[in-house]
């Protein structure tokens, strides 16, 4: 029997997904476990696999289109099955999303008998049946009738208060084969603003999440910034020494050293490896450091866990692997969630100093600039040293000025005197 294939939940925070490509084509057979499509979620591109075998009869959401969780994206079944009814539902489903409410007054319904389906035609409704959070509002009996009769509530426009789908709406849907879509005109807003033209591109899932997370941070998180200069010559010597002794594929970066040093410092400063959670402060036992990785569409922070216990080579290999996955959008949710602290390094872009925005619920993020050969005075003489500026953004609800400063002190000391890592 033909079935609707619904948009699955592929990440913990996903509310809708964009089909990035269909792996199989209409008419193709597939078995359980086969990948049908790749879906761009808020964090990564996920493979959408089939739970049972069948044939892809119809693609409803072509590549590039977006579907909410649970929305029909395809119809599957056996070759040659009649899918007209399912298509009708699915198409109303689609038009509902595209057509905003008509801005006219509802037709009077006072004379309509409550139980009469004939007079209560659905298009009189002015509001969509979804609450602001995307939830469908539906009366219990209407929900049950819809379930019993296979009516997709997303395809029904509610005529009750706040767009509540009520019994008569389902009755109308059952009687009239769908209560929405017919005769509705897509609303085209005027786009002329001054003289300039512009192109609208749909906001990607990732960009939306970045926006909401960062706004969330700068809003409720009282942030302050601490900057310090670090003389990196010894750390650079260390890196040279190690890289001279390992094969090419194991060579380490300055950043790998910074990650380990940060992890070691976090262990010594529990208030920095913590999270403000309203009624409690959560202290993490392990430093799990999110490494900001720039990718084409934005950034993502894969997590290096427990770097305090790992060697430089191991850390370096891990970061390379995670970054590669991030760029190909293959990161698994558990690889990019649950960091306890973050590091953003823009040194490779020639950035000398900057501030980064905390990724809640973490309490801090370290913004690392590039190490610049600088003339400094040492023991009365002007000498050249590689100076790196780091700025830590601190959530003041957990980290106080002195707490943050002490953390940076430890961090600085270990980088300037790498032997301190062994102490």
């Amino acid at each position, binding site marked *: 029997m033909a079935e609707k294939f619904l948009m699955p939940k592929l990440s913990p925070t996903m509310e809708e997904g964009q089909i990035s490509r269909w792996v199989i084509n209409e008419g193709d057979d597939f078995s359980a476990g086969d990948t049908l499509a790749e879906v761009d979620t808020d964090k990564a591109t996920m493979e959408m696999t089939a739970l049972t075998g069948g044939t892809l009869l119809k693609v409803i959401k072509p590549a590039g289109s977006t579907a909410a969780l649970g929305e029909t994206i395809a119809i599957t079944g056996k070759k040659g099955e009649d899918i007209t009814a399912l298509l009708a539902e699915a198409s109303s489903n689609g038009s509902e999303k595209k057509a905003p409410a008509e801005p006219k007054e509802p037709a009077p*319904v*006072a*004379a309509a*008998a*409550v*139980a009469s389906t004939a007079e209560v035609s659905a298009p009189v409704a002015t509001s969509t049946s979804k609450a602001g959070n995307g939830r469908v509002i539906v*009366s*219990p*009996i*209407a*929900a*049950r009738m819809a379930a019993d009769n296979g009516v997709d509530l997303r395809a029904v426009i509610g*005529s*009750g*208060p706040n767009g509540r789908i*009520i*019994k*008569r709406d389902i009755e109308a849907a059952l009687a009239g084969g769908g209560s929405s879509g017919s005769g509705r005109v897509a609303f085209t807003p005027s786009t002329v603003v001054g003289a300039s033209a512009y192109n609208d591109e749909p906001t990607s899932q990732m960009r939306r999440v970045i926006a909401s997370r960062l706004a969330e941070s700068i809003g409720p998180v009282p942030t302050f910034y601490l900057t310090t200069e670090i003389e990196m010559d010894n750390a650079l010597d260390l890196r040279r020494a190690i890289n001279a002794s390992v094969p090419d594929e194991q060579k380490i970066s300055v950043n790998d050293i910074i990650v380990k040093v940060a992890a070691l410092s976090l262990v010594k400063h529990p208030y920095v490896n913590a999270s403000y959670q309203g009624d409690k402060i959560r202290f993490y036992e392990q430093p799990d450091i999110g490494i900001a990785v720039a990718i084409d569409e934005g950034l993502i922070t894969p997590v290096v866990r427990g770097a305090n216990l790992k060697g430089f080579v191991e850390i370096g290999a891990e970061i390379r692997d995670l970054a590669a996955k991030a760029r190909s959008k293959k990161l698994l949710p558990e690889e990019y969630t649950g960091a306890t602290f973050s590091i953003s390094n823009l040194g490779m872009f020639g950035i000398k100093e900057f501030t980064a925005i905390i990724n809640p619920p973490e309490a801090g993020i370290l913004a690392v600039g590039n190490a610049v050969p600088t003339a400094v005075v040492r023991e009365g003489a002007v000498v050249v040293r590689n100076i790196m500026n780091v700025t830590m953004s601190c959530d003041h609800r957990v980290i106080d000025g002195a707490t943050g400063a002490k953390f940076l002190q430890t961090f600085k000391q270990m980088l300037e005197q790498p032997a301190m890592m062994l102490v």
Partner: protein
Amino acid sequence: MAVLTIRDALNEALREEILRDENVFVMGEEVAEYDGAYKVTRGLWKEFGDKRVVDTPITELGFAAVGVGAAMAGLRPVIEFMTWNFSILASDQIINHAAKMLYMSGGQFKVPIVFRGPNGSAFQVSSQHSQALEAFYANFPGLKVVMPSTAADAKGLLKSSIRDDNPVIFLEQERMYGLKGEVPEGDDFIIPLGLADIKREGTDCTIVARSMTVPLALQAAEKIQAEFDVSVEVVDPRTIKPLDIDTIVGSVQKTNRLVIAEESHEFASVGAEITYQVMDRAFDHLDAPIKRVSTAETPMPYAKNLEAAALPSVEKIIAAVKDVCYL
């Protein structure tokens, strides 16, 4: 069938039960020589004398207690409160004694007593004489609570209450004493406690009404039928405790919409209890949130217009029905 007022139907019930059982007696203020403050006991003292129809001092706590003790020792007292407002003075005996005696004596002492009288508002008698106390008494295990709305129900339910072995709170309504209705004849006519009655059949919306709101709900139903072609079912639980929730749920399963009309105050009312039970038993059948029409959260005002504004009315019930029917 005879056509009787509710007052005379109650009088018949008392008379028949006094004749039927020598342990039945009626006690209260002005019930005997004066013929009853609202004439429910008219003629009984002349017919049966001091032993069976007993005037009391104005001593509600005292005569309620005498009733409780007499019932424990085997009599079947019918205690009249001139109005239920005065029962609050006697509520220690009703709640702390009558309601608990069976339980705290481990089932040894039953208290077959009826407390009865007019409940709710009357005609501009203001704050201390207009209270509807069904929710108050229904909250206590050990009591049955009965509220008739027609002459036949009044007679049949009062006879059942007198024959019941439990304390029964029998709530009449002063505004309704003169309402006439057909009453089956014969001493054997009784209506069992705990059975609701569908006063009007309908398909689109259920109104649960009791006592004074039953005639209001019936009027509202007719108007809604005429104006909107909406068919309203009116269910009268008749007994508040034990509540015939099955009949109410059955009706809601049919109509998917429920309005509760009641004379008591809104907060923690019997309507609130019915709302919960319907939600619990028939959630999947509801097409709209349940609406209540209750008395305003205020002591009863005296002024005629304010009193009317505080009380349930046909118009308020119609508005609630329109609400739940999305009209």
